């Protein structure tokens, strides 16, 4: 019977030059419920899908405030996400204690990536099973980063991670070029649309998503459920209006969500 010989510990290479354990950790990110992030020149918005483990339980927190100028959204093992959030908070506090200035986002992200990297090179460790979208503001402007269990990190204009994130990515890819000039409200709107893409027809309500924002003159904060619901309602009425105009021929495609065309331009 076939069995992979090269995936029993993190430090073993496969002949093809792969580290299977690290790749498995990255799979864990895809299992988690989705998180999206997008940024303009002045603001970054994070949004997540909240999935409760059972009807009887509440959902896990997926958005964490790190400091006034940074926040993260996670997908994957929430427990690992919490540990990393605590690490990030500590780094920020220590930096402000020494310099009385906020830690630049890019530098925070590198420290996080280095921490993740160490776990891919030690036989007695396990990679973190979580992906983080890091949203932040520093003197160079607004930033959105994705941190991966492998220790890689990337800066994005917009990105999505977690289950069915491909649909959100497709949506974002079609629209990202305009994001730079977006207002905070427009960013949130597109964040909600991107989140909706990942829901596979399930109804978008404020109870299954968290939205957070950081930007110039706006410290990182999670937007209240009530405010999110109002925006969701506003989107829906507008959507219905456009659907009626186009004769409702788009509705037929709802059986194939991954290939579904993104929302009509508002």
């Amino acid at each position, binding site marked *: 019977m076939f069995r992979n010989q090269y995936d029993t510990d993190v430090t073993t290479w496969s002949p093809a030059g792969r580290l299977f354990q690290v790749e498995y950790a990255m799979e864990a990110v895809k299992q988690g419920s989705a998180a999206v992030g997008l940024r303009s020149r002045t603001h970054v918005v994070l949004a997540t899908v909240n999935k409760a483990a059972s009807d009887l339980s509440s959902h896990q927190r997926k958005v964490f405030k790190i400091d006034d100028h940074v926040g993260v959204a996670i997908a994957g093992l929430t427990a690992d996400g919490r540990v990393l959030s605590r690490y990030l908070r500590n780094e920020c506090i220590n930096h402000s*204690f*020494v*310099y*009385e*200035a906020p830690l*630049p986002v*890019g*530098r925070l992200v590198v420290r996080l990536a280095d921490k993740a990297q160490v776990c891919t090179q030690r036989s007695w460790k396990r990679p973190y099973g979580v992906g983080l979208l890091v949203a932040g503001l*520093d*003197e*160079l402007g607004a930033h959105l980063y994705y941190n991966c269990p492998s220790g890689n990190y990337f800066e994005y204009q917009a990105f999505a991670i977690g289950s069915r994130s491909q649909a959100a990515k497709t949506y974002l890819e079609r629209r990202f070029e305009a994001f730079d000039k977006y207002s905070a409200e427009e960013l949130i709107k597109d964040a909600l649309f991107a989140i909706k893409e990942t829901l596979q027809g399930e109804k978008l309500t404020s109870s299954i998503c968290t939205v957070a924002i950081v930007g110039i003159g706006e410290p990182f904060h999670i937007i209240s459920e009530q405010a999110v619901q109002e925006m969701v309602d506003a989107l829906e009425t507008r959507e219905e209006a456009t659907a009626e105009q186009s004769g409702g021929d788009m509705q037929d495609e709802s059986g194939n969500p991954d290939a579904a065309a993104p929302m009509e331009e508002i």
Partner: protein
Amino acid sequence: MAHDEDVAGSERTLYPYVTGTSVIGIKYKDGILMAADTGGSYGSTLRYKSVERMKVIGKHSLLGASGEISDFQEILRYLDELILYDNMWDDGNSLGPKEIHNYLNRVMYNRRNKFNPLWNSLVLGGVKNGNKYLGVVTMLGAHYEDNHVATGFGNHLAVPILRSEWKEGMSFEEAVKLLEKCLLVLLYRDRSSINKFQIAKITEEGATIYPAYSLKTFWGFSAFQNPGQFAEGTW
């Protein structure tokens, strides 16, 4: 306290050896000006005549020091490393004067907590993103900002002049004139001061430390002529 005993066997600054005297710093229209002489005293002996006591730190800051010269040079080594590591990120972020001032404060305060102080009063000036910054850190870690500052003897002799004559938005020429007035008073009354001064400036465009020069003095006052004349028993 545990620190009482065996001071002989340990290495820490119990008193300064070679010291520099006052540093003065003021804000002016385009940034910060700083002034100090280039003397290094060994106790009351004027031992060194060309010690640079003001240095450029990174892109936006200027540091001036009075007190133990060797400790100042040690601080410069700390800062060189700090700036080097900051530059190595190569990400467009850079430490401004506020950050450096705070960092220095942590260094000074931590050393005093270990009963191993760096024997200096430091003046930090700088400009970043249009904001002028001028602050002081003492050897114990006390720190503050102001429009004009001075260390050591300057606190007694220069600050009163600055308080009455400093104005917001002075031109470079006015500011230099004011600094020279202070330096001259210090030269006359502070015995560790020497007539070889440097002026340094920092603006949004960058820092310049000017070559050392002398001020014109006047010793012709009758009281200076023969000071022992009416005081019998002196020489």
